[in-house]
């Protein structure tokens, strides 16, 4: 009789304990998911910022490498357009072999 009572009590304790653990886990899970949700939102924001920065860098690069921009820079550096092009006939040897 006493054994039966002890067994019933034990089952209740285990069940109660399990319920307690589940409740605690559930609270942890909720906190964890909420935190992860915030983390995901933060990552999405960072991704958007990085994409914007990449776009800005690309635009900057394209602007600096444009033909118009290169032309201006080359003029500033003293390069000039060839004004009198001389064509050399293919038959004239440039250097003779010894």
């Amino acid at each position: 009789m006493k054994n039966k009572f002890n067994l019933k009590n034990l089952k209740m304790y285990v069940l109660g304990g399990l319920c307690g653990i589940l409740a605690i886990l559930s609270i942890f899970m909720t906190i964890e998911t909420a935190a992860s949700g915030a983390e995901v939102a933060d990552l999405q924001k960072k991704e958007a910022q990085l994409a914007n920065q990449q776009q800005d860098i690309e635009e900057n690069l394209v602007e600096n490498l444009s033909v118009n921009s290169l032309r201006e820079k080359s003029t500033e550096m003293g390069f000039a357009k060839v004004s009198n092009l001389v064509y050399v006939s293919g038959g004239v040897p440039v250097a003779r072999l010894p």
Partner: protein
Amino acid sequence: MGSTLSQKAQSQYDSSTITAAPRGNILAPDGSFWVLRNNVWQITVNPKLIKESPENIAKKIAPFLVDDSNNIASVSAETQKINNLISKQDVSWVSLAQKVADSVKKNIQALGILGIDFTQGGGRFYPEASAAAQLLGFVGKDDGGNDMGYFGLEGYYNLPLSGKPGFVGQEKDAKGTPILLGGTKEVTAINGVDLTISVDKRIQLLIEKNLEDGIVKYEARGGSVTIMDPYTGKILGMATYPSFDPSKYWEYNNEVFRNPVISDSFEPGSVFKVLVMAGGLDSGAVTLETKCDICNGPISVDGYQIETWNNKYHPNSSMTDVIVDSDNVGMTFVGQKMGANTLYDYLQKFGIGNTTGIDLQGESVSPLRKRGTWSNVDLDTTTFGQGVAVTAIQMVRAVSAIANGGYLPFPHVVTQIQGDGWQENVEPSDSPRVISQKTAEEITQMMVDAANLGEAKWTKIPGFTVAAKTGTAQIPVAGHYDPTNTNHSFIGFAPVDHPKFVMLVMLQSPQSSPWAAETAAPLWYSIAKDLFPYMGIQPDR
């Protein structure tokens, strides 16, 4: 009751966002950018949230939103405009500026003004500024406020460039943080495709610079230069003047957006003679040995007098002489030998009267008079390019058929389309044969002689053989020809044995000279002089 509350709760959780599809880029053959998508911002303000006076805010922001912050008048006007917008009390959302660059947005954001907000949007960046504006087109807004391409490539390829926006539906908490265990629905956005075009940046900038100089030098109203590969139909350059800045298209009149190369028809004048002569030779109506037996003076047709441009006459001219001398009476002789229907058929074969199908928005052409309805005068005047209207692109295409040995190419600009992880080359249809190889060679030689011995011989480049023809055309105005203005053109190709380009130079109403040989021709050669070394064309004599 429960279900109603549940629905209300759900509507508070649910958050849906449209994900934008970035518009595609437009690239040059070397992989550099003609048009790059970029970040732009719309600046908005909620007048109910601002803490400072509207006037103060306007004074702080205005210098960032004008082109020149040192220009006191424009800063003052902008300040007034912003002040008026922010002072509206009965609204909770006002747009202050659109398409604002990222750097400007950062500067305004740094001011930390409460109530000002920024919304990201897609913009277009043009690294070569206004170059090729009419060919590229621009991106404006449709009636619904959405981005839409207008004119040129942006208009023609608007749908593939636009892509398809996506959608993300998520459950979020009160702070807007996503609930990971909640449901998520997502439709991925499809990015707009990138277009690679055949227009070479260096060629384009070269012809734009030369055209602008030519317009000033020859005091012309406007003009265009078109360069095409005669074998493939690829457009290598297309410059027009006047032009516009596609990044500020709203500052220009609508007329300037039209691309005259594909939209404006003109009476071609003498450049048209090479097409008629090609038809005459190919049909057998005339041969190289044929002599013009009516070329000894002006002729009268149905009461109209047909004369040569300089009132000089050359009895018994050969067909080559007719082209070299640009002889209107000689061309009338060719037309009469061909007959109206044969001439009509050859013009049709050369694509005159029909659109070329070029992949640019806004192509329009004038139809030919119906077959079988031509009068004698119609036939005769058409032979020397009067009473018939063509676009510059039609003319370039038709002369390309002479340059490449007889095949009519299909002009096109886009050579490759690239999407996410795929790419496809754009291959035009097979070119139909228009004239025989023999005819193409004969008419090419006539054009070589015209370049070497004709009125424009003074401007040719020593050592290089080119095939070319001048055209000085009267301008029809309200039923008669303008007595003072003419349109000038010069069309040609090089090298003659295997041409790398066909180029047409058009000048509207130049005032410095009445003849194309003194305006369009030297401009053509000044461009060719730079094109030869760039395209690897060597002197041949």
